[in-house]
């Protein structure tokens, strides 16, 4: 489900493709955010009580007008609890700490960063999405709607996409000689991917893949069958450095 793509026709004729975040990523991000929000609100409450009353005992000042201490004590946690999502999504350009940890981001249907209006609308409609409890309506809507959006997203014209963070080294190509350029680019890319997964692969499996790859990349110039596990890894590393 997380592999679904959302395609936006680009003005240059080249489409922008964004991987859609499914209900799983959405729920994961929400659960993280919920915990952060509750902890922050409780911390705010404790801090405010210590500042106002000097202890964790609550005093109601009945009959007092104006901004009473009791009011101020509840203000901080209430603000944290209710404004957590809209404020952070606005400041973090479509993300919240939970969304960042889950690797997802809110974007508009045009692929842009949502503005204050869109963020407020998608958060106000949580009133409907959270019905009857535990975000049941939102979850069901996200399961069955196109682009896996909840009602708030439909109203705001937003969707949740996977915020892919590809290391900038994948854009790097520095030391490329004429001889190295003769090696298939895709093969070099594969060599790097195998090296990254090397510790997770079974020894016989990774050796077989490495030998097949080296044979494809280098042809008859070298005999990879003569190399042991460590040597194969070192040779792949040398090869991938050519990228």
């Amino acid at each position, binding site marked *: 489900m997380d592999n679904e793509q959302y395609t*936006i026709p*680009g003005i*240059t*004729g*080249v489409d*922008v*493709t964004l991987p859609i975040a499914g209900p799983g990523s959405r729920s994961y991000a929400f659960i993280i955010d919920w915990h952060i929000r509750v902890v922050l609100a409780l911390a705010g409450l404790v801090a405010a009580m210590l500042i106002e009353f000097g202890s964790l005992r609550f005093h109601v*000042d*009945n*009959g*007092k*007008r*104006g*901004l*009473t201490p*009791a*009011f101020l004590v*509840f*203000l901080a946690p*209430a603000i944290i609890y209710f404004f957590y999502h809209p404020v952070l999504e606005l400041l973090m*350009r479509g993300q919240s700490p939970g969304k960042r940890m889950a690797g997802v981001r809110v*974007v*508009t249907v*045009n*692929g*842009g*960063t*949502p*503005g*204050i209006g*869109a963020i*407020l*609308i998608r958060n*106000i*409609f949580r*009133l*409907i999405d959270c019905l009857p409890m535990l975000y049941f309506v939102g979850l069901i809507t996200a399961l069955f709607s196109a682009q896996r959006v909840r*009602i708030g997203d*439909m*109203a*705001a*014209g937003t969707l949740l996409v996977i915020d*892919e963070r*590809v290391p*900038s080294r*994948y*854009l*790097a*190509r520095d030391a*490329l000689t*004429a001889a190295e*350029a*003769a*090696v*298939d*680019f*895709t093969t*070099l*890319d594969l060599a*790097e991917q195998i090296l990254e997964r090397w510790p997770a692969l079974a020894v016989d499996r990774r050796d077989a893949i490495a030998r097949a790859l080296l044979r494809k990349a280098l042809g008859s110039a070298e005999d990879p069958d003569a190399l042991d596990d460590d040597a194969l890894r070192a040779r792949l590393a040398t090869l991938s450095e050519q990228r």
Partner: protein
Amino acid sequence: MKSSAAAWVHARAPAWRELSSRIVELRRRRSISVDEALGAIEAYRNVARDLASARRLVPGTRTAAALETLFAQIHATIARHPSGGWAGLLSALRDDIPSVVRELAPRIFWMAALMCSSAAAGFCLIATYPHLISLIASEEMIQHVEEGKLWTDGLINVTPSSILSVRILSNNIVVALFAVCSGFLFGLGTFYLMLVNGLMLGATFAFVHQHGLAARLFEFIIAHGMVELSVICIAGAIGTAIADSLIRPTHATRRESFRVCVRRAAPLMALCAVLLVGAGLIEGFISPDPVFPLASRIAIGVSYWFLMVLTLGGWLLRPLRAAGAL
């Protein structure tokens, strides 16, 4: 082909790396200069061209994936919604909100009529069958009234005004927003809310009237109630407009129609929330306070209601516009 693909990537890589760090910087900033914006558009075109080549020459590689990400990031930067700031707020108050209110005027009228009718029905119901008040009011509230006291008496001595205000205004805002949002259920939620609110209001008045307390309840609600009930009717009107956008879509799809309707009504929803904050403060600080006589309560209620009408109609900013300040 093999060597040309690698050579092409090699040739273009420095430009991508430079652009990658520039885009991170641009995304972080709230506003950018015209030159930077034009530079970003030029970069967008270049990356689009490179991405098209990468999709053909090196498909499935992580360099192609990195380019896809870079392209999406530049796209997000270029397609970013412009920040309206104070100009946006003034424009919403001057043009957007009055225009939406004019469009919603018939719905607001019908929502007010619905609420009045249900209030009348509630009044008649309790006037005819007084024992049914137990379905609407709490045991404690009934006991208070039967003892000749209003449940609002001494409220200010029980809960501090500030806490009372916040509790009331947050509750009212949730009710109003719920009336708007439940329009998504093809208006059923909105109609239910309006009917129930009207019914409870009428029934409560009938009940206190039977015990000779109607005048005192009127005295309690007049300062905040005019705006509060008006805003609930406006929220109901927005809810029915949302329902209408789903039942009779005005755009290619229901989802698009729904989105456009909500976006159009959003500034009005925000203003309603602000008005309810004001009403909540009045209800917490003024309505339960016996210091304020009926005349001043009526003056506050009517003045606040007129302020609401002037704001909704865009008349509040008209003198400023005439003076050339806007």
